[in-house]
């Protein structure tokens, strides 16, 4: 395993030496709502907080530039003039309490000047009261879940996953990946279901996580907040522009840390309400009868989709997992054993491993995915079908 990694590294170096360094970014346009090509500064602000951060960043930068010029101007002058080769003899002075006091007090005053506006922004950032809309964001390995818990759209709930196809990402497995991703200006910062919010409304985001710590980060909002399993934290933003704004997970969360972006679609009040109505209608249509008894073929077909959305990142499309890291499902004792055992594993997770609880999925989805794994990749489990009612019975 390790040897192939090193061999690939050597190949890549050889490629680079052959001039493989084409200016990749120049082939690509700026990302709408994301980074510009070779962007040098903080993202274009879309909220008041982000605008304030721009301001304070420039303020500190100028303070630093002035200090830099003074200190290194003096040092450069000394380096040029006070050299032995120019015949400059060393002066004898040292120790001066007055000077020491001066260069302690002046920096202290500069720091006070920086701390005052910073304090104001901290208070602003932390004021999550009086929100118009409250949305819960849950970090999963490796996707986000959004639940609209208060305000217009209450009750809407969905998962938000990277929509960049693997055939743009993995050069090793998909020839032509490079050409495909160069055609995609939102490469790695696009999702299937973005969070949708109304413009000019105060949105409070309540954050938690299901497995490990993640961080919800939108540069254009000047907002980053860790999502901590078992605890709830909150943050807020009031987007002042209509548009799609993009960010990424900012706290190392395992294998696909780089592949769980955050996209917020800011719409006009009217468009937002329209979206809410559509979602509600869709949810009604989708609501499934948990008591329904399914045919095995239908369950398997449904389960394959659930597997692709939730399980494939670790257990892999071929069910073989990643040896040593993520166990195989093909031939697995749990999958081939009693159905209760597998239902429990999926509902409770395996503490201390990367296997999280998936109880956020519906009974039908869990029944489908379990049935799928029991019949896929040459698996022939004696108990080959699990109905939604079986899952419901195991839920506590």
């Amino acid at each position, binding site marked *: 395993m*390790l040897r192939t990694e090193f061999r*690939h590294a050597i190949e890549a170096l050889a490629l680079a030496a052959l001039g493989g360094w084409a200016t*990749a*970014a120049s082939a*690509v346009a700026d990302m709408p709502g*994301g*980074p510009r*090509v*070779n*962007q*040098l*500064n903080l993202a274009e602000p879309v909220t008041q907080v982000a605008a304030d*951060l721009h301001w*304070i*960043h420039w303020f*500190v930068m100028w303070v*630093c530039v002035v200090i*830099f010029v003074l200190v290194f101007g003096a040092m450069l002058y*000394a*380096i040029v003039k*006070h*050299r*032995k080769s120019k015949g*400059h003899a*060393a*002066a*004898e*002075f040292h*120790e001066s309490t007055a*000077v*020491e006091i001066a*260069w302690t007090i002046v*920096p202290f005053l500069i*720091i006070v000047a*920086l*701390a005052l506006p*910073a*304090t104001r*922004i*901290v208070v602003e950032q932390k004021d999550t009261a009086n929100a118009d809309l409250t949305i819960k964001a849950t970090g999963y390995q490796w996707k986000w879940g959004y639940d609209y818990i208060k305000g217009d759209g209450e009750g809407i709930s969905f998962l938000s996953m990277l929509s960049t196809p693997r055939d743009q990402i993995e*050069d090793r497995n998909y020839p032509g990946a*490079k050409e495909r991703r160069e055609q995609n*200006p*939102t490469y*790695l*910062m696009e999702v299937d279901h973005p969070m949708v919010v109304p413009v000019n409304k105060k949105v409070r985001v309540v954050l938690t996580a299901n*497995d490990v*710590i993640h*961080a919800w980060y939108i540069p254009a909002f000047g907002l980053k*907040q860790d999502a901590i*399993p078992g605890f709830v934290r909150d943050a807020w933003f009031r987007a002042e522009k209509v548009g799609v704004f993009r*960010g*990424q997970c*900012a706290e*190392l969360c395992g294998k696909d*840390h*780089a*592949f769980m972006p955050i996209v917020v679609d800011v719409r006009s009040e009217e468009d937002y309400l329209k979206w809410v109505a559509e979602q509600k209608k869709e949810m009604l249509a989708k609501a499934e009868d948990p008591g329904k008894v399914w045919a095995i073929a239908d369950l398997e077909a449904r389960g394959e989709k659930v597997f692709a959305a939730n399980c494939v990142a670790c257990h892999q499309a071929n069910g073989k997992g990643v040896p*040593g*890291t993520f166990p195989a499902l093909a031939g697995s004792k749990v999958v081939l054993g009693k159905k209760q055992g597998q239902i429990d594993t999926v509902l409770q997770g395996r503490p201390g491993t990367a296997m999280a609880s998936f109880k956020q999925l519906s009974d039908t989805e869990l029944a489908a995915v379990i049935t799928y794994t029991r019949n896929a990749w040459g698996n022939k489990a004696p108990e080959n079908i699990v109905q939604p009612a079986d899952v419901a019975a195991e839920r506590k």
Partner: protein
Amino acid sequence: MSAVLDQHGGHAHDHGHDHPTGWRRWLYATNHKDIGTMYLWFSFTMFLIGGVNALLLRSELFQPGLQILRPEFFNQLTTMHGLIMVFGGIMPAFVGFANWQIPMMIGASDMAFARMNNFSFWLLPAAALLLIVSYFVPGGATAAGWTLYAPLSVQMGPGMDLAIFALHIMGASSIMGAINIITTILNMRAPGMTLMKMPMFCWTWLITAYLLLAVMPVLAGAVTMVLTDRHFGTSFFNAAGGGDPVMYQHIFWFFGHPEVYIMILPAFGIISEVIPTFARKKLFGCSSMVYATASIAILSFIVWAHHMFTTGMPVTGQLFFMYATMLIAVPTGVKVFNWTATMWRGSMTFETPMLFAVGFIFVFTMGGFTGVIVALAPLDLPLHDTYYVVAHFHYVLVAGSLFALFAGTYYWIPKWTGHMYDERLGKIHFWASMITFNITFFPMHFLGLAGMPRRYADYPMQFADFNALITIGAFGFGLSQLIFLWAVIKCIRGGEKATDRVWEGSHGLEWTLPSPAPFHTFETPPVVK
């Protein structure tokens, strides 16, 4: 442990005048110079291994997309790069300098506890072996980042356990080293050398040693809790069992922030030795340098949560840690001003140690500026866990600690080997390092401001040009270090004979000794007036 000690005790003869040869000279070494040499070679080896880790992951980041590494292996590389550089590279290198220099600078015959000195060194290769072996266990090395945040670290495979044991062992080694240094400095100074007359390098190491004693046990505690959470059913960091994942971060950074100063204070000490020598002028404010070092050390204990602004502390917490952190700029500023004042109206020459020292001040100060920027809690929110932070800590750790280590090596190596190093090679090494360092790390500021998170195996296309440039710079920087290796080997094997004073402006007891310094020095303590 006692078994090991007994075994050594069993072979004891009159070690004071015993010169074992061959491998015994090194395995049974009790001489501070031999042990210092081993520390330095060990740390340079680890520096190269950690560097190879960095170059592998930079190869993957050369272009967007996944070409050569799977993301899980990428995470192992970032983690191990950090652990190896911090615990195997920088820290042992400074202990190596302490071993070589402190006895010679305070006029002592050796370190206070010669056998413990041996033990604290020989623990390190064992720990390093555990770390490296962890790549080859099922699941590979730990991929939780060098900070080993729970609960991600609880998920890892057996590689994580090996890393935990490695940290325990390296912690024990550091604690023994610290006890040795404190005892040596406080009890074995030559008659007449009062504390305030002591060279600045010894002062900074004395303070550093106290920091080590205070925080290495805290790290051991944190990783032990991860270990019991992993294997013995405890729930220190698991909310479902009544624990708190954020508590891990509090404990880790209570160690981690002083640790940052453990890696920079001895560097300040080296720079404070080198600048006066080549400016041919006394250090501007000796006592204020001591007070500044002590203030930084004390403040380091009350700023830890500035690494955690994004965890979501209350306003008061955010403000307290912001103010405390900003205060550190004051004593750090005092240091930079003092070095500048020392250079002012001096009679300067720019041999390699001086080049690295001046380069240190220049690049370290840039890291200091970005430090003030990320100290501002509101501004830290968008910058935290992005490449901006990667740029910041490499500016203070590579350009800071590592450049100071280079300055110190070129400064003292004539005393160690008896030969002058090749000045031309040294200068090439300096300029190559300085230029490639900035090519590597300066563009990271832009990436971070634009929002590229750290520890990412793949990134949006818009970040491609800077990443390609960074990778080229990184390879340049890595290769430049082979010049250093060549310069050192060349100096060991021969070269112009070094005089006792070596440098025209040299000051201090070590320069009263012959070059190379004999195996035993100051068997009769010198008298300092």
